[in-house]
């Protein structure tokens, strides 16, 4: 099976920032997805622990891609004037966090938690392809439901949503004024 590794590296390289999905790989390599996941897991472990390499394999959602290791960052920045100074605003991060943890979720639900209007922010996040519409809730006004995208997972280095940092647990207060968990 190891002779597939160079081929996989080649495919990931050509695909670039889009990456390749598990199902695409499984189709072209003619190998079933379960075996492929196993193969990819061990390949990724070996790949990412090889210190002679300048590249790293990422898995997000069910896509794989190659990126440079962090050590090359400052050099690449020098070379390309990269604009990695780009940062998310607190408002963007909060909105993304709510969607990621509560998805699928409507705009109104997000606004209830944040206490401010999120209309513009949602449109910006849609435009950045970090969230997507996944249908409508069957209620008055048929509001859109939002979920995060694969791009979101890639942007925040998540293999799956289960890798999201744990949400802090606080006791909430019941109506009787008692605390419950």
């Amino acid at each position, binding site marked *: 099976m190891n002779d597939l590794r160079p081929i996989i590296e080649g495919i990931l*390289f*050509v*695909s*670039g*920032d*889009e990456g390749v999905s598990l199902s695409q790989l499984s189709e072209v390599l003619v190998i079933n997805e379960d075996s492929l996941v196993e193969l990819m897991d061990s390949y990724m472990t070996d790949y990412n622990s090889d210190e002679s390499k300048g590249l*790293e394999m*990422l898995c997000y959602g069910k896509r794989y*891609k*190659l*990126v*440079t*290791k*962090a050590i*090359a*960052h400052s050099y*690449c920045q020098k*070379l*390309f*004037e*990269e*604009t*990695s100074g780009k940062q*998310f605003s*607190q*408002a963007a*991060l*909060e909105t*993304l*966090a*709510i969607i*990621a*943890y509560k998805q699928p979720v409507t705009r109104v639900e997000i606004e*209830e*938690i*944040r*206490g*401010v*209007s999120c209309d513009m922010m949602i449109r910006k996040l*849609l*435009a950045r*392809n970090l969230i*997507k519409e996944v249908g409508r809730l069957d209620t008055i006004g048929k509001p859109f439901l939002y979920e995060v995208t694969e791009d979101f997972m*890639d*942007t*925040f*280095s*998540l293999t799956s949503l289960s890798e*999201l*940092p744990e*949400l*802090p647990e*606080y*006791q*909430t*207060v*019941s*109506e009787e*004024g008692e*605390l419950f968990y």
Partner: protein
Amino acid sequence: MEFFVTIEQFEGPLDLMLHLIKEKELDLFDLDINILTQQYVEYIHAMEQMKLDIASEYLLELATLIEYKSKKLLPNEAAELDDNYQQQQEVDLVNRLIEYKKFKEVSIKLDDLYQERNLKFDKPQSEIVNQWIDINENYESTSAYELIKAMNRCLKRFQLSQPYEVNITQKRISIEDRKKQLKINIKKFNEVFALSNTMYDCRDLYEVVITFLAILDLVNENVLSFTIKDDEVYFKKV
């Protein structure tokens, strides 16, 4: 009372309340809403006096808090039902604050993940892929967001490919360095060459001027001699 934090620094009324709770060392989990309300009202008033625009969300929350406070101040003749309503309101506010606080905290962790990921670069899809895609099929209907995604890729790449060479020209070559370059370049030239020959690699006026000054220097140092014929200046290696 002085306020050092302006309202623009908050993500909304809940964020402001959390700030006040922290600043006044109130206990979120055993919150005295009277104190919070008082702090909030003072803050909003101070901001208003500073003629800052205050978004309607803050004012809405202000109205709710004032309603709450005024009801508490009223003589307790109202029905018990109102009492329950009071308590419910209090519980609701605290729970909203707790819920908001959770997401505020986790968004900081998300930002850490982003910063980490940000240190790793992607590469664009290889151009060779274009040769493999047969685009003469009927296209499936596609979301307009695919377009913006594509545009984003272009713009990002456009920035990435801002030619590094531009930076080098901005560094501005010195006359001394240009002289060294010229000495190498003229080895490839004929015995006699025109001034324009020496300018072939100049990319802007600055470099033309520097080259001319360097040439003058080389003449001065007796590396080159010159003659003028028609409108062109010719040089000869000495």
